[in-house]
């Protein structure tokens, strides 16, 4: 925290006057963002005014599309860096990763918030979203469990993010109070993440006749949980690189973080997790007795996903982190992210209706809607990082990390 306490407007406009700040916003990047939002926000408004049928290519045969497959499932998997890093730093005491925890938690928090916004777009009656929490409990449903966990975990992520917010405002009393519950929040966050990251996979256990045997497995929850750890690690590698490059001036020189060294360490963990994940997927094929399916076009597609985007990045991670090849580790992280996205899209869309002659292809409005939601997330991330102490290498005051 800075000793002086600048006026709120100064904090908001980063020390500039409102006019200077507004003028400073006129950059090519911001114009592109404005362009996306100028198209995207009316598209989302159109979806709510005229319904899902008018805006999407969802059908009776394909009830779930891009907004569930990408915004919800990929959004939550890629936001798993929050709990993965929180567990590594606070529970396992790997404090060398502390400098990237805040950014990982912010990515997680915004990832969840915008995944829920994607869900709101997809729900037929989004204004009823609190119903599973307060109105009618469908306790036999995996969706019910996911709903509760996501609602609770998003709240926990908000609690984990709040210290940076209060430091920004210079409010010390709530900061102290948060410090008291921080450990509990982190444990609760890991428990809730374990539950719903796996349950997002359990959702598809109900569709044994629909999901292709190469993807259907009683171990779906384990696949989803383990791959979410890989996705979280890969996202932290990529996100910390981008953040520390773009927001270089936001990090105090005395606290400048060696993101490369952190990436190498995370890469080593990702290599192990991805390798285990590939073997679990093979076990899934063995369990289903689906080896013969590997010789079909669906098998080729499975090999692209599991071989090309899980096994290959696992080896690159291992080689890169062993020989301190930071470029290789970042490449592997990008491949792993693509791999997890492919997996979620396969399970929820492509391989789910493999017997269905009608192929679902998202409408342009669904794609624009997803792009808009991601853009809103990036803009919010940038707005917060530019103001609050996210990248400055601080972390919690928990004793294990001092």
């Amino acid at each position: 925290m800075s000793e002086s306490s600048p006026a709120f407007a100064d904090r908001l406009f980063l020390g500039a006057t409102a006019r200077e700040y507004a003028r400073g916003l006129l950059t090519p990047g911001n114009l592109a963002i404005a362009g996306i939002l100028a198209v995207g926000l009316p598209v989302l408004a159109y979806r709510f005014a005229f319904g899902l049928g008018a805006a999407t290519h969802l059908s009776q045969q394909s009830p779930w599309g891009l907004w569930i497959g990408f915004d919800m499932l990929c959004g939550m998997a890629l936001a798993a860096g929050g709990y993965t890093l929180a567990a590594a730093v606070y529970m396992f005491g790997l404090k060398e990763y502390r400098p990237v925890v805040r950014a990982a938690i912010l990515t997680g928090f915004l990832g969840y918030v915008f995944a829920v916004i994607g869900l709101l777009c997809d729900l037929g009656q989004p204004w009823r979203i609190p119903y599973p929490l307060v109105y009618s409990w469908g306790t036999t449903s995996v969706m019910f469990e996911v709903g509760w966990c996501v609602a609770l975990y998003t709240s926990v992520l908000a609690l984990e993010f709040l210290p940076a917010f209060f430091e920004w405002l210079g409010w010390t009393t709530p900061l102290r109070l948060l410090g008291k519950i921080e450990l509990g929040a982190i444990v609760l966050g890991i428990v809730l993440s374990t539950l719903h990251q796996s349950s997002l996979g359990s959702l598809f256990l109900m569709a044994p006749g629909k999901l292709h045997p190469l993807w259907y497995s009683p171990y779906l929850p384990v696949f989803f949980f383990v791959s979410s750890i890989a996705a979280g690690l890969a996202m932290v590698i990529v996100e910390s690189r981008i953040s520390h490059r773009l927001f270089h001036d936001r990090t105090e020189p005395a606290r400048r973080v060696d993101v490369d060294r952190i990436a190498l360490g995370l890469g080593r963990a990702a290599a192990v997790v991805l390798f285990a994940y590939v073997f679990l997927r093979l076990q899934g094929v063995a369990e289903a007795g689906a080896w013969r399916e590997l010789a079909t076009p669906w098998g080729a597609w499975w090999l692209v996903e599991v071989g090309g985007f899980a096994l290959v990045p696992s080896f690159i991670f291992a080689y890169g982190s062993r020989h301190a090849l930071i470029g290789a580790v970042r490449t592997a992280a990008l491949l792993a992210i693509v791999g997890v996205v492919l997996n979620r899209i396969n399970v929820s869309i492509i391989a789910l209706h493999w017997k269905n002659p009608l192929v679902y292809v998202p409408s342009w409005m669904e794609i624009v809607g997803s792009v808009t939601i991601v853009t809103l997330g990036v803009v919010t991330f940038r707005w917060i990082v530019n103001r609050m102490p996210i990248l400055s290498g601080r972390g919690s005051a928990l004793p294990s990390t001092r």
Partner: protein
Amino acid sequence: MRIGRRSFLKTCAVLGATGAARALPASGPAAGAIAGADEGIGVLVDTTRCLGCRSCEVACAESNRLPEPDRLGDDTVFDAHRETSERQLTVVNRSRAPGEPRYAKSQCLHCIVPACASACPVKALDKTAAGPVVYHEDRCIGCRYCMIACPFDVPKYEYDRAVPYVRKCTMCPSRLADGKPPACVEACPGGALEFGKRSTLLAEARRRMYAPGSTYVPTIYGEHEAGGTSWLYISDRPLESFGFPQDAGETPRFETTRGALGAVPFVVTLWPPLLMGLYTASRRRADVAAAEGAPGEENGHE
């Protein structure tokens, strides 16, 4: 050395999760053993008696205040297989098998343990004690998980409406409450639909099937499908020739998620002490390192 210990702990964490999921085998009561299931009501469809007149479609539309079925009285309607829709809760299809034409209506089969009701996060779909699987539209949030879960692809969604609902046959619960059979059963002129207690219908189906000179295929569709359904079909043509799914399996869909849902209390009770143990251990390690002033330990002091 330190790396070794850490990777060991990570491995333990992963194995712990795997173990928790594996420790709970998905086993449950066999389909026929669900208490009271056969005492619920149902309908027996005998396709050898169906004339293909589509009176059931008309009666269904009237009873549910839906638009009149398309191409009434036009036999070309049978040329292509039709699915039920949000505006047509039952449709009659012609068998693709050779020989005399055979017809069968399709609609919700009203499972004994319905996948849709197990999947619904708000109990909007619900199995009543009497037998029908009903829909409480005041609860539905529109997640459409029922459509993913249903092994027969029965629930349909009103995509075209700004305030949409799920639509499917609910077996006319208000008529049942008045002591009347479902509208389609009452309208059937050929006696192809028989309404009654499931156990009675099963016995009747077997009686017809094993009568001398019977030409019936010796299976009752719905007796075991997806754990058993309230609607039962017998036919002298293979049921797949009417477009009925053959991959529904014999266990209720609920069984597939039983293990995963059963693991929740274990994760909730076992994870926190495990994590706190890890926390205490890593904290102690940090304290010892600080006391010894170990130069190798990184420090990020405030």
